Each structure stands twice: as C-alpha cells, then as structure tokens.
C-alpha cells in the first residue's frame, strides 16, 4: 500500500487537519491579547473604574478628537490623494514623498516637529493665540496631532484606490456628458470606494490610538491612550486595563463597519 493510499484511508484528511490546527494557532496568537485583556479585566474593576467622577472623559475626548481628525483627514486628504494619483509634474510627486515621509516618521518625532512648527514661541503659535487657539496642550492640539499621525494612512491608501480606477472609464464618462465632479461621483467613488473605506478604517484606528505625537503636543486633555499611560504610571497595570478595553471598543467599530462595506462592494 502506498503512502498516498494509506493517507486516503484515514478518517480525516491529514492536510486539512493540519490546516485547521495552523488556523487555530494563528487565530489564538492574533486574538490572544484580546482574550487576556478581557480575562484580566473583571467587570467589577470596570464598573469601579468608570464610576469615578470624570472617568468617562477620556472616552469622550478620544471619540470627539478622532471624529474631528477623521473629518479633517477626509476633506483635505481626499483632495491631496486625488492630486497624488492624477496630478502631472513635480508637485504631486513631492506631495507623495512628503506624505510617505510622514507615514514613516516615528510619531514622537512628529510631535517634536509640531512643537517646533506651531509651539507657543513660533509665529504660527503666536498667530493661533491671537484667535485664542493653541497648538499645544489643548483639545485642538490633540486633533492636530491625530491628523498628523493618522492622515498619511488615509492619503496613501486613497491615492492607491484612485489610481486603480481605469482611466478609460473616466474618458467614456466624459464623452457621455459627465463633468469632472459628476464622473467623480458616478465612476471614481464607486470603483475606488472599497480602498477608500479601508483607508478610512486604518486612519480612524491610528487617530484613536495616537500616542507618540500626542504625548508631546497634547499631554492635556487626556484621551484614552494618555489615560492608559498615566494610569499605568500612577497606579499600575490593573488601573490601566479598563481604559485599554475601552480603547479597543472605541477603535474597532468603525474599521469593522468599513471592512463590511468594502466586503459588500466586492460582492
């Protein structure tokens, strides 16, 4: 009897059994931290943590700042992504390199550069203070730091999505009477939508979890990442865990919705 025949006589296909095991291990590795987190965070600790006065503030601050950052990223980032994808000449290429540099730069360095650019002692900082804004240690500063940390993820993803749309389709839409805005809405957006949704999901997760630039330019007010850091430093691991769970709950829904949107667009 050959090895092949004997393998076929096993009640379960060994290959698929191995595959299943591999999948289970991978899955366990990926969601392991989540399970540990849930297991370590007792419901009573959670209730205790969030029943203190002002305990919900970091959640609201994170949600609010990330929502504003995502709005700014969508409005400005879509235009920049379009130029990177379709623009001719040097400027779009330089813009692409700049965005790429932002993506690759360590967030802590982004934070330092933001201080050098718009700190209180700079011309921009002075101009902002005239209209009673400050780019350091305010809610506004938090939003800015999140835009810088999360924006490149959206811009590069959206540019790639725009570039994937066949130019011949846009040409046809033009010949069939569409203005630039109309064909963007009827052809480009539907066809690039999947990539744009995924990029938005990534940008949201980055914005909510932004820490490196935030700790430098916006130590106050605390969003969730800063709250985790502060709790960890002041009271230790158990105090930080409820906020970690909250951060995951805040960060996950939008990406999951976006992935579902893109899955439906694919079908």
């Amino acid at each position, binding site marked *: 009897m050959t090895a092949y025949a004997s393998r076929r006589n096993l009640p379960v296909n060994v290959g698929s059994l191995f595959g299943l095991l591999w999948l289970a291990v991978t899955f366990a590795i990926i969601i392991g931290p989540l399970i540990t987190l849930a297991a370590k965070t007792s419901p009573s600790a959670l209730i205790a943590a969030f029943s203190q006065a002002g305990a919900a503030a970091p959640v609201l601050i994170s949600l609010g700042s990330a929502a504003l950052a995502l709005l700014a990223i969508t409005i400005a980032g879509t235009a920049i992504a379009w130029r990177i994808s379709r623009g001719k000449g040097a400027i779009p290429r330089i813009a692409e390199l700049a965005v790429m540099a932002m993506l690759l730069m360590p967030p802590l360095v982004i934070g330092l550069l933001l201080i050098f650019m718009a700190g209180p002692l700079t011309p921009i900082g002075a101009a902002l203070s005239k209209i009673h804004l400050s780019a350091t240690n305010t809610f506004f500063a938090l939003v800015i730091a999140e835009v810088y940390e999360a924006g490149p993820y959206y811009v590069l993803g959206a540019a790639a999505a725009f570039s994937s749309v066949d130019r*011949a389709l846009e*040409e046809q839409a033009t010949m*069939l009477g569409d203005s630039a805005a109309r064909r963007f809405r009827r*052809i480009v957006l539907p066809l690039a939508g999947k990539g744009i949704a995924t990029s938005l999901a990534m940008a949201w997760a980055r914005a909510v979890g932004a820490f490196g630039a935030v700790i430098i330019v916006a130590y106050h007010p605390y969003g969730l990442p800063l709250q985790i850091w502060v709790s960890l430093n002041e009271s230790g691991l158990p105090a930080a865990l409820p906020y970690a769970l909250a951060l995951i709950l805040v960060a996950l829904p939008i990406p999951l919705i976006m992935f579902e949107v893109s899955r439906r667009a694919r079908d």
Partner: protein
Amino acid sequence: MLEIDLTCNRGDFELTFAATVPNGSILGVFGPSGSGKTTLIETIAGLSEPARGVVAVDGQQLTGDGATVRPIPPNRRRIGLVRQRAALFPHLTIDENIHYATTSDRARARHLVERFDLERLGARKPSDLSGGEAQRVAFVRALASPIDLLLLDEPLTGLDAELRAELATTVSEVVKELEIPCLIAAHELTELERMVDTLAILHDGRLLQIGAVGELYAAPATAEVAALLGMHFLPGREIATGKQLMVAVHPEAIHFGPGGGLELPVAVEAVRFLRGRFEHRLNYGDRALVAYAPEPLPSGQAIAYLASMHPFTLGGNPVAMTPDGAIEILR
C-alpha cells in the same frame, strides 16, 4: 457634417490633417501604428488640444482659437467614442451602461439594442459578457444619446472575423440611418474597406492621400501610399527613354489568365486555400509576390499577368501611365 483642418503637436511628433465628412458618411483613417490616428481622434473628441486649426461639426466650431474663443469641453461636444477596449462601467448593469448619459433616449436605445442584437443582456454585468458582446454594448452606449459625430478608434480590432464583418455592416447602416458623420481609424485595411465611403492614408503625421477606396487603388498618389495599400514593388524601365522605374502591383491585379496584361514569368512556390480561393506564393527573380486564383496551380514555372500597375520614379513620385508595353519589368 464634420470639418477638420488642424495641426497637433505631441513632443517631437506633429500631425497635420484636413478632411470633410458629410452626414451619414464614414471616413476611414488608415495608417500604421504611430501614424497619428489616436492623436487625431483625441483632438477631435476634445481630449487633447490642437496646436492650431479647426474642428467643426454642423458648422459649429468645437476648437478654441487660443485667445478669445474657448474650446468646447469634451463632455459638451455631443460626440460618441468607441475604442478598441469596450471600457464598460464594471459596477453598472448593461442597461445602466447604455443609459449612462443623462441625454440617452429610451426609444433610440431600444432600437439600437435590437440592431446590435443585445436583447436580454440588460440585467447582466459587463464581467458576464464576451468580448464581442461588450463591444456591441459600447457601440449602443455611444449611440444611445442624440450625438452629432461618431468617432471609432480601432473598434473591431481583436474581434473574430465573422463578428467583425457583421459589426462593420451594422455600424455603417446605423450611421446612415442616424445621418451623422463618422470617422474610423484602424491599422488594418480589412477593418475599414467594408464600411468606409472615403479613405484617408496617414503616415508619420502626414495625410498622404484621401479619396474613395477605389480611387486610391486605381491611382495611389505616391509609392508610400502604394506600399501601405499592400502593393508589391518590381523594378521596371520605361522602354522609350530607358529610365529606371519602380512598378507597384496589387496582389489582386495579378492573375494567371485568361485575359490580358503584362506577362511575368514566375515560379509558384506554395499554394494554400484561403477564404474561398487559392493564395499563391510566387517568386519573380529574388522578389516574393502573392497572387490569388480560383484554382490552384502546380508548383514550378508559370506565366502571371499584371492586369494593372502603377509606375513610380525611384524617388516615389507617380509616372503618367503609358500604354501597355511601354514599360518593361526587369528581373
């Protein structure tokens, strides 16, 4: 009516072209790759701007003058464009593709769907269609709104011969029905001969000759045109003066009798059956010729007759046709 008289520049490449296409008439633009066909189509469509010159449809100027008159943007030119790739919108059904233009006309589209034999495909997505079906949808989509001009850029390239013939007939009938001018560019004569009223020969950005297809074959203006029309060249001599010539001969003008013409002793190298007749590969000296006959000839020596020929000077200029016998073909 379409009137074109323009010069376009693209880097080092320059294209000059002038032609008039009446309503219901089809102008074929024939030339090898890189001759400027696509530049011409894109300039008429408004997708690129000419360096100078005019494109006008029904007396209305579409191009700008570089100063006070602005060009009409492509989306307001009322021009249908079909290219080699159907470029159907993949996220829309066939019906939605056909009615993509807000100006599309229900009754007109229904009629076209019938003419192009596309009934019952309406609810499908482009990915479910064969190449031929997709191209037919592209034609219907381009024609479904009341357009003033139809531009075709190698629209039949890559389709099988049977469908090509069928589509060529349908398109030329529809253009006549709708009474719009049509310009079709292709690098294969077979794609054009069946449907065009007038043929323009384009080479390296220059319009070499324009006229009825028969006229072009009967009197190619230059040796370049003769070569592009697929003619063979043989060395010749004007008997009276002894002047050296090139003689262009179209394969269709070579026969094996009965009937007259200049005699040419040839060697039959190979014969094969091709589209209802026999293609003969001949050698005349060291030159290879092609000729067709209803019956196959045995290999070996044979006498071929040149029913018509076009003498050119060695520089490529036409020589006034002299009576038969005044030219001899050299070996």
